[in-house]
């Protein structure tokens, strides 16, 4: 069992231009999508809680890039990025934020409850830690059927202190389930810094208590995230059991739209923003000659158009049919 901080080696396809540009496009899409969502929120088109992952795009995109289409994803309430990176239609995701019938969850769930059966994206969940046992259960289903699908379960550093995390990881550990637990460690659970909430601040060290490998990686390096998660997912697929990966990253925006951010300094935030992972990745693409500014700018334009189209679609979409209020409470009422 390896528990050290370890750099991942690039996979062959990670050197291919198409793939690299895809990763860039996805990170940009998430960034732009969330910036626009924030605008629409202030306009009142989106309500309730809106949790942005701006700054965490590499962890969003790298994890999804490591999966097979039939692998399964469980995420928490900060999951616009996971949904988009998984290939869900930006129109339908934005429509969900708007509470429209055309939304991915038919407007019933909103920002915190994005899901798509077709994409094996089993939901955003808003009870911290509450989805982790569900993810273990789906991994159990794969083991039960002898399927080689693998489950990826995403949550934050704050979630590791919930009883649900503990019970689910122990179950995965004792039953050797095909699942990878991916923690976005952005150093805060709402306004509580990890050292004020966790006896052990290096999340990967928790893995040892469940007899599974734990790794800590740079969550702001999309290639490292993809390579490491893929390695752990394939390990699970090969029947070698569960694992935990800690992706070190940072949230540029507040916890939700309501956050006064009294708990961290402007300097701290600025330092991270100065190392904006999307800017860094673009520079890398240019420096390594993968693509030139013109190509990359074209992607920016393309993403811009996609997001504008998504907002227009969401805005023009109809609300759910009032007569459908009781639909989906029961399959057989």
């Amino acid at each position: 069992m390896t528990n050290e901080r370890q750099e991942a080696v690039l996979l062959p396809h990670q050197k291919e231009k198409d793939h690299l540009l895809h990763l860039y496009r996805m990170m940009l899409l998430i960034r732009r999508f969330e910036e626009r969502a924030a605008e629409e929120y202030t306009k009142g088109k989106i309500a309730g809680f809106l949790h942005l992952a701006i700054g965490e795009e590499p962890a969003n995109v790298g994890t999804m890039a490591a999966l097979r289409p039939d692998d399964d994803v469980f995420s928490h309430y900060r999951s616009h990025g996971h949904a988009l990176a998984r290939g869900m239609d930006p129109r339908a995701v934005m429509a969900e934020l708007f509470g429209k019938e055309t939304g991915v969850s038919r407007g019933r769930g909103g920002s915190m409850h994005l899901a798509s059966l077709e994409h094996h994206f089993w939901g955003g969940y808003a009870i911290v830690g509450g989805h982790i046992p569900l993810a273990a259960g789906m991994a159990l289903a794969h083991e039960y059927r002898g399927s080689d699908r693998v489950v990826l379960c995403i949550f934050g550093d704050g979630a590791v202190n919930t009883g649900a995390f503990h019970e689910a990881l122990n179950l995965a550990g004792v039953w050797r389930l095909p699942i990878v637990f991916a923690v976005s460690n952005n150093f805060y659970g709402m306004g509580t810094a990890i050292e004020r909430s966790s006896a052990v601040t290096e999340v990967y060290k928790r893995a040892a208590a469940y007899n599974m490998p734990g790794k800590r990686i740079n969550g702001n390096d999309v290639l490292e995230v993809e390579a490491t998660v893929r390695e752990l997912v394939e390990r699970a697929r090969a029947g070698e059991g569960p694992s935990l990966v800690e992706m070190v990253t940072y949230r540029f925006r507040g916890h939700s739209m309501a956050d006064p951010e009294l708990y961290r300094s402007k300097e701290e935030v600025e330092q991270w923003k100065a190392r904006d992972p999307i800017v860094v990745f673009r520079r890398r693409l240019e420096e390594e000659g993968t693509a030139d500014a013109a190509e990359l700018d074209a992607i920016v334009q393309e993403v811009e158009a996609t997001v504008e189209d998504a907002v227009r679609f969401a805005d023009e979409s109809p609300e759910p049919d009032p007569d459908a209020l009781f639909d989906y409470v029961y399959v057989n009422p």
Partner: protein
Amino acid sequence: MAEITYREAVRQALREEMLRDERVFLLGEDIGRYGGSYAVTKGLLEEFGEKRVRDTPISETAIIGAAAGAAMDGLRPVAEIMTINFTLVAIDQIINNVAKIHYMFGGQFRCPIVIRTVGGGRRLAATHSQNLEVLFAHIPGLKVVAPATPYDAKGLLKASIRDEDPVVFIEHALLYGTRGEVPDEEYVVPIGVSDIKRRGRDVTIVAYSRMTREALIAAEELAKQGIEAEVVDLRTLRPLDMGPVLDSVARTNRVVVVGEDWRSFGIGAEVASRIQEEAFDDLDAPVLRVNQQEVPTPYAANLERLAFPSSQQIVEACLEVLNIRVGASVAAG
């Protein structure tokens, strides 16, 4: 027709459904090697193996969550929570996940699990003798079943396992040893149908689970005094089938509602409210309730006897709604 115990009836239902449907499996604490804490699952491990009869850690949150996650992917888990007292450590999974997964994501997913658990108990003191069914009956998205006889237990459990919605199936510790007729041929009892267990014209007694038996004993007592009580067994608490209750009240005009739970905010409160709402003009007297005294269950034998409802209390309540002073008797009519 064979006369079997309630315990055996539950076991037969589990076994027949496991034989019928490969997707059905059991998980819970000590259901396998130990043989089941109430011996309900005895022999099933030997017959079906560790894959389909899974002993778990003492992790109720993981048990329910894992069952739900497996169900989302198409399996048919039957989770046993050793007693209803322990559902409290898993109730977030039940209320925030299991009950809402179908609705919250706009009907994309289903969560057809059965949560088998056990109410009641004797000389087990405050934390091990509770009847907490109302905590589940209050929740849209759940179905709640509480059978009183071997026939109903078997038929309703088979229906629950086949149901597309999640079902909380509440057995009763003191009923396991009771016997009753069960057909040799395959049958199911539909969820959501109350059942008249005894005909009578003078007073209606509404009950469920073990209290149905007490009600029938009380009815025999009353018969000796020339009073014919009708006993309606709810069988299902959610959805609540008031039809047979209201029909009965239309004939008897007097009702006693019996529950082993605490009276305040218990199951009987809803039943009484529905009766006065829907049969106001039929009532010749207020709907009375007989329940456990409002104390955490004491261990001491004499106090516990005083705490739990008895057939004698049911008799007295019936005489009260009939305006008959205890002791006196009436020519029925």
